[in-house]
């Protein structure tokens, strides 16, 4: 019979390392905020002929956009990110166009130099916007956590100390969020992957899913606690995990199949969204078994105060000497 519970310190170490990588990335790179959070314009252009990125950058600079960030997404496909583009100017009396929209001018100039092209997507966000979005996202995660905390405490009210179950579940959730955000900070720094509203949606979805998973394990713990009162907490939890393992893996596998399909075959626009979901669901499953349940034991056995006490004697020694 596998002993999951005994090796729990290894799991904590592994998670700590993972989160450490994430935190370091966050500090080093920060999060690469997408256009919805800053302001500017993003154009997706598809050229018929092959175009060199250096040439395109050169042309954009000539058009007055040396700040343009250009990303190649395919043979002749590029994503061009600039500061806010100027809109059309019309004569108020005649309605005639005095200056065409800057977007149009850029398109014509590029067409002249590089041959026929197609503008697939244009997204402009004015500087009026980019504000409390980060704050709103954090609030959303916080509210979700509180909501879940309350619900679990209520759902497991007949158990001893239901509040602990709730807290450990929320810790597992926060662990998952940190891992996903950390990995995307890393990707942002290395590959320039951006954070958009869909990313935040993915994070919130992961929150929901992680708890979903954790509750199934808790449910089994609840049942086993009632049935086999003689066992220690460690034994109960270990048994519960073993019993639910099959189900956890199967469910995650089916969901992962579905998302993997979308990740591989779905359009480019949801590519990173799917990646975030994929990472989140994997950690969500992991955290239910290896984090949330283990933390219950740690709490019960007061292992954290013991850990701290082991560190303290050194300080006492120093004082005496």
């Amino acid at each position, binding site marked *: 019979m596998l002993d999951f519970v005994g090796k729990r310190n290894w799991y904590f170490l592994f998670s700590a390392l993972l989160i450490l990588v994430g935190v370091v990335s966050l500090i080093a790179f920060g999060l690469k905020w997408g256009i919805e959070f800053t302001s500017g314009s993003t154009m997706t252009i598809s050229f018929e002929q092959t175009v060199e990125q250096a040439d395109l950058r050169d042309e954009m600079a000539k058009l007055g956009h040396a700040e343009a960030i250009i990303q190649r997404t395919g043979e002749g496909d590029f994503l061009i990110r600039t500061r806010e583009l100027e809109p059309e100017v019309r004569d108020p009396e*005649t309605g005639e166009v005095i200056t065409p929209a800057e977007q149009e001018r850029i398109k014509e100039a590029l067409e002249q130099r590089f041959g026929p092209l197609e503008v697939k997507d*244009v997204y402009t966000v*004015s500087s009026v916007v980019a504000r409390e979005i980060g704050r709103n996202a954090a609030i*959303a995660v916080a509210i979700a956590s509180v909501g879940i905390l309350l619900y679990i405490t209520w*759902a497991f009210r007949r158990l001893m100390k239901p509040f602990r179950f709730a807290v450990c579940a929320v810790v597992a959730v926060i662990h998952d969020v940190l891992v996903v955000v950390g990995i995307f900070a890393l990707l942002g720094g290395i590959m320039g992957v951006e954070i958009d*509203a*869909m990313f935040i949606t993915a994070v919130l979805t992961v929150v929901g899913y992680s708890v979903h998973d954790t509750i199934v394990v808790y449910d089994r713990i609840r049942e086993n606690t009632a049935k086999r009162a003689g066992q220690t907490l460690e034994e109960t939890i270990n048994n519960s995990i073993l019993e639910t393992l099959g189900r956890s893996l199967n469910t995650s596998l089916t969901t992962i199949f579905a*998302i993997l*399909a979308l990740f591989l075959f779905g359009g480019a626009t949801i590519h990173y969204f799917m990646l975030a979901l994929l990472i989140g669901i994997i950690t969500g499953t992991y955290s239910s078994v290896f984090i949330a349940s283990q933390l219950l034991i740690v709490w019960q056995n007061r292992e954290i105060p013991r850990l701290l006490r082991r560190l303290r004697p050194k300080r006492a020694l120093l004082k005496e000497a």
Partner: protein
Amino acid sequence: MGRRNKLILIGIILLVAFASSVMLIDDIDLPLIGERDGMKLGLDLQGGTNLIYEADFTDIPSGERAGRLGETKRIIERRINQYGVTEPVIQTMGSDRISIQLPGVTEIEEAKDLVGHTAMLEFWEQGGGADAVTEEVKAGDTQVVVNGASRFSAGDIITIGPWQDPWDEKADRALTDARTITAIDQETNTLTLDSALDLDHERGEPVQRWIAASGTIDGEEMPLTGTYLKGASIEMQSQTNKPVVSFEWDGDGAELFSQITGRLIGNPLGIVLDNELISAPVVRSQIRERGIIEGLDVDGARRLSIQLSTGALPVTLTLVREQTVDATLGKDSLHKSLIAGIVGLVLVLAFMVTYYRVCGALAGFALLIYTAFVLTIFKLVPVTLSLAGIAALILSIGMAVDANVLNFERIKEELRAGKGLKPAIEAGFDRAWPSIRDSNVSTFITCVILYWFGDQFSSALVMGFALTLFIGVAVSMFTAVIVTRTFLRAIILTPLARRVGLFRP
């Protein structure tokens, strides 16, 4: 089988029949629900433009804000409907934003013009204080020197330059600047204007003060504005073959108009839209009920007639976000995600049958039914399907399987504990239910919060995802518990039930 089970089974079959017909027939018309034709697709799947405007509430008391935003939304809806865009989606978002989705619209500059302008119509007449430019000024200057600055006051509206009769074909109307005076220096006779001049002006060119044209109604003096309009429309003038905007006054408006035109015969009447002088025809005769505005091109005239007939917006709007998705990109995305969806579904089904055998096959069947039900709900509500929505759908298919897996694992345990097939099934479902219920509730909580977040962030995409996920998970609970169970209960009455091995992975 039990009587109740039979009834439920029949119920399910009927629902499936209903769902299939809803999905297979493109255009349907149901009582209570109304017409639906095809699935409603989001902008990222069919291409189009999304505009997000923020309302400027600076001078408006907080109690009135919600009302004004709603009124603005309604006026915009009317404008866009008159313009003829098919199926626009206009929503208020958060407390001060309006989101406008225009599928298939390629002329976004036109759309922005139509929507973004307040369209406040006012009328000016020449007030006392004709003066002249004493020093040459160039385009780009913000000041002008006149003979007697004391004739003017700060806040006055003036025109600089000769005014031409627009009926005169040879007239060059681009000779006049209309500006508001922001400051006056009496000593140097200099008037500071609210914005730079568009044209050069020579010595001697007239500087004319304009005041709001008003008349008296019931002894009270009222300025003539667009609020008195009964309607406006675009017409082609037969003589000149040029478009004009023809407008009609209501009772009070007609009275004011006739007073004003009566007073101004031989003089120009300024027509001002959103504080810009767009036309100042010389009044030929006293007019009562109708008038025309000329000098615009066809598109401009059409826009103006729509803006005037729907009324001025009660707040000023600023464009804060604009996104255009090409139709081909949309179709491409749709195509890809459908393939991904099918691949995912097939993989899941294969897995289910391999691992759980007969139960798995039944669950797979239930899954197909689940997909049909969910898509039907999407078509009927209707829920706008976006790329993220499809992702939510596929995610919920994964979760639907989860509920089934929970049930089957329980049944497995019960079988191992030595129970017979039928009692094992019943016990399994009963035992698994609390898990399913509790775990899905957490997902619901997240959906609600996501929906709120999407509204705050003016992202219809996030809201669509939340709604789709919610419906998906809710229906999945239903099919996993009720549908699969009904099938299982039915199937154990068949000879298949004797081969218990088929049921046990």
